[in-house]
């Protein structure tokens, strides 16, 4: 049997809370990685996948410490090394590709200077040779203008390109092991394909081993040879990609797979309402200085839509398509400069300051990032109580009782109301976020990417909750997302947006079959499938890609 490249034995990592209690983060994890093999660590947030990946470099985040176990990479015993020896290891033996390349690059230095930095730190080769090598890597990663892209600054290249450049940075020291920490999570689906392809081809050519950290099984299926499923710092299941996808043994793995398959949405029986809950005609909105009644940066252009009471409308598109602006314009946060909006047959003023309290109450908006949408200085009870007082004039015991009811509606324990937002998990925060909207007693909820920042299993639970609330309260949702499978799971009809315009309206159930506009087809074909051969077999028209994406 060949010697494995990496061996991790009985790894235990822990941290201390501010009251002095010990918390175990990683609880006895063991695995091996063969040379040239790509292993994926998969699990929801808090499962310890990033902690394990970082520990392979001998690094732990502030406050954490490796308490027990052994990590060996090649001939180096990482756990027994001093910090100085580990620093020598990083970049040459093990390297790291971060989740957000935009945050990992120094905005004030040219890309080339940052890519070749590793060779200078470890004194590997002269500068001219390092630059030559970097250009070779840029070519291998299919970057445009490989000879000159290094002269640009990080803000002059797109997000997908920057992510590939950060891979070039990791590969320049010829490491034996590359750690990818959710490198495509922040990217659009069409960009994600390009990046995955580039990673795949470089890793195949170089014969390096890799650790790929992700929560997205479909992405992992395209790139990994083996998958390790983690939960709560313990390995749940380990197996080849084929075996995990087709014959999962552990119930948790099955749960992950099930969450990926959207439950088809059963449309509510058509309520015979005379008027749609929301009708939008030729809406135009934008940002910037207003000249002649029109803002300088126009985002939305002649958007029209119609949402029947008790139905759900999905809006999909990539970043920059104007889908969030649409929600803001409907909510009145960004006043539209032209067009008409009707809520339940009555006209809505563009600016929310001119709307009545009752109109504001009937339309509520829920934002993507529950972290920033909840005031960190207020307890959950205060946050939920405010709309009750504001819209319904509730006080005292009546209001306290209603807060508990609201928490119960979103399946949270009543004891949570004394906590601050930072003490909740991501899924819990999003439920509180939703409960605050429900507190107003709305008829229409504008959901702006509310599941995008959540793990698959948690997001699936939120979608179930939305459906349940719809049945009980007769709500209508305008559901904005870049993730087609979530839209499919909850919506009756879908609008595809591109550069501020609606390019196509489709029934959600027959999205892939009915799409006729080339952009909708491109978007739908870019969604990763739970199939190891999907990326290899995917054929996309390069002209079409060039036309609709700007990379």
């Amino acid at each position, binding site marked *: 049997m060949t010697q494995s490249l990496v061996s991790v034995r009985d790894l235990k990592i822990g941290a201390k809370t501010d009251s002095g209690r010990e918390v175990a983060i990683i609880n006895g994890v063991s695995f091996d990685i063969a040379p040239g093999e790509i292993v994926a660590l998969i699990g929801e947030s808090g499962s310890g996948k990033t902690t394990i990946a970082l520990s392979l470099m001998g690094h732990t985040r502030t406050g954490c410490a490796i308490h027990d176990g052994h990590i060996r990479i090649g001939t180096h015993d990482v756990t027994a090394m001093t910090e100085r020896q580990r620093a020598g290891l990083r970049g040459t033996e093990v390297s790291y590709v971060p989740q957000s390349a935009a945050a990992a690059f120094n905005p004030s230095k040219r890309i080339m200077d940052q890519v070749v930095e590793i060779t200078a730190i470890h004194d590997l080769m002269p500068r001219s040779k390092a630059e030559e090598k970097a250009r070779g890597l840029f070519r291998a990663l299919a970057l445009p203008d490989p000879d000159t892209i290094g002269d640009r600054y990080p803000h002059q290249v797109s997000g997908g390109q920057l992510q590939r450049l950060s891979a070039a940075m990791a590969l320049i020291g010829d490491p034996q092991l590359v750690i990818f920490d959710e490198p495509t999570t922040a990217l659009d689906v069409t960009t994600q394909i390009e990046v995955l392809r580039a990673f795949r081809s470089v890793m195949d050519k170089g014969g390096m081993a890799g650790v790929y950290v992700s929560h997205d099984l479909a992405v992992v299926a395209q790139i990994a040879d083996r998958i390790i499923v983690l939960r709560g710092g313990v390995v749940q299941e380990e197996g080849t990609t084929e075996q995990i996808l087709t014959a999962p043994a552990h119930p948790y793995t099955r749960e992950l797979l099930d969450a990926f398959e959207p439950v088809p949405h059963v449309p509510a029986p058509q309520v015979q309402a005379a008027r749609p809950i929301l009708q939008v005609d030729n809406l135009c909105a934008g940002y910037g200085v207003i000249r002649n009644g029109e803002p300088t940066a126009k985002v939305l252009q002649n958007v029209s839509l119609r949402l029947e009471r008790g139905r759900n409308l999905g809006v999909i598109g990539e970043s920059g398509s104007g889908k969030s602006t649409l929600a803001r314009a409907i909510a009145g946060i960004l006043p539209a400069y032209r067009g008409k909006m009707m809520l339940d047959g009555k006209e809505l003023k563009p600016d929310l300051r001119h709307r009545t309290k009752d109109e504001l109450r009937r339309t509520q908006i829920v934002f993507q*990032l529950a972290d920033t*949408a909840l005031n960190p200085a207020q307890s959950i009870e205060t946050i939920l109580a405010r709309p009750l007082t504001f819209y319904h004039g509730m006080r005292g015991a009546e209001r306290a009782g209603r807060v508990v009811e609201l928490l119960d509606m979103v399946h949270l324990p009543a004891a949570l109301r004394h906590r601050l937002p930072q003490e909740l998990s991501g899924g819990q925060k999003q439920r509180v976020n939703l409960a605050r909207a429900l507190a107003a007693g709305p008829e229409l909820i504008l959901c702006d990417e509310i599941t995008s920042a959540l793990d698959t299993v948690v997001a699936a639970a939120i979608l179930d909750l939305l459906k349940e609330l719809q049945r009980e309260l007769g709500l209508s949702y305008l559901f904005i997302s870049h993730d087609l499978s979530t839209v499919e799971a909850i919506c009756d009809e879908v609008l595809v947006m591109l550069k501020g315009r609606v390019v196509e309206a489709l029934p959600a159930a027959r999205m892939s079959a009915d799409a006729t506009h080339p952009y909708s087809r491109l978007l739908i074909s870019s969604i990763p499938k739970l199939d190891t051969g999907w990326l290899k077999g995917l054929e996309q028209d390069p002209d079409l890609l060039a036309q609709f994406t700007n990379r």
Partner: protein
Amino acid sequence: MSMSRRIPTPARLGYSFNWVGRVGLAIILFWAVIAIIGPGITPYPPGEMADWDYFGPISEKFWMGSDYLGRDILSRVIMGARYTVGIALAAVALACTGGVILGMIAAVIGGWFDTILSRLLDAFNGIPHLLFGLVVVAAVGSSIPVLILTLAAMYLPGSYRFARALAVNVNTMDFVTVARARGERFGHIILREIFPNILGPVLADLGLRFVFIVLVLSGLSFLGLGVQPPNADWGALVRENIEGLSLGAPAVIFPSIAIASLTISVNMFIDNLPTRIRDRTE
């Protein structure tokens, strides 16, 4: 056992309060008490020339020595506490309250209001502090309310700038947008959504500003515009006895120690305020 349970220590109330902060608070309280009970405990009237010698050493009669006129330094420090602690605290409270409120208003309203207010206060900030104090006190005469208002006016623009910069950042957060979309009024957005989230840095700024005000107050007193003789604030005590330094007189050391102990303890306390113990799993 039952006795100790009744005493509400920070830990029992669910707060952690480290010893640096406790020491700071203890010194502040000590000076506050001295300021209040001062006239009752001075061994000599602060204006009386009690010693036959000038710049006298520490002795049984004069615990902190005597000054350049043979007055008792202990009595003068005790009486000075009133002026230093009182004027400086009142001025810093006024400056920070005004600055923070204006800063939050400017950040939330934005646009023209913000631009005009910011430029006005910038222009005002361009006038040298001591010069401004000189003109005001020369024009209206020196009294404690005038001193407090003048000092507050000098330090308000800085506090405004600081609070505005913080509030602009908080103002773009989604929870403020949610409150606005709910139809909340201006007052609620400022006091409930923004203020609690800028409070920490604002308090740290207050501590720093307090120190500056103590120093400027002593500068004004030196020019004869501050606290009027025979009374003196601590800064004035240092200035009037500065020649004693070459004679090794304690007269200049003790007022300096008093200023240092108060300013350092204010900063120690503000940097180490009691924090609520929070633990995710409890």
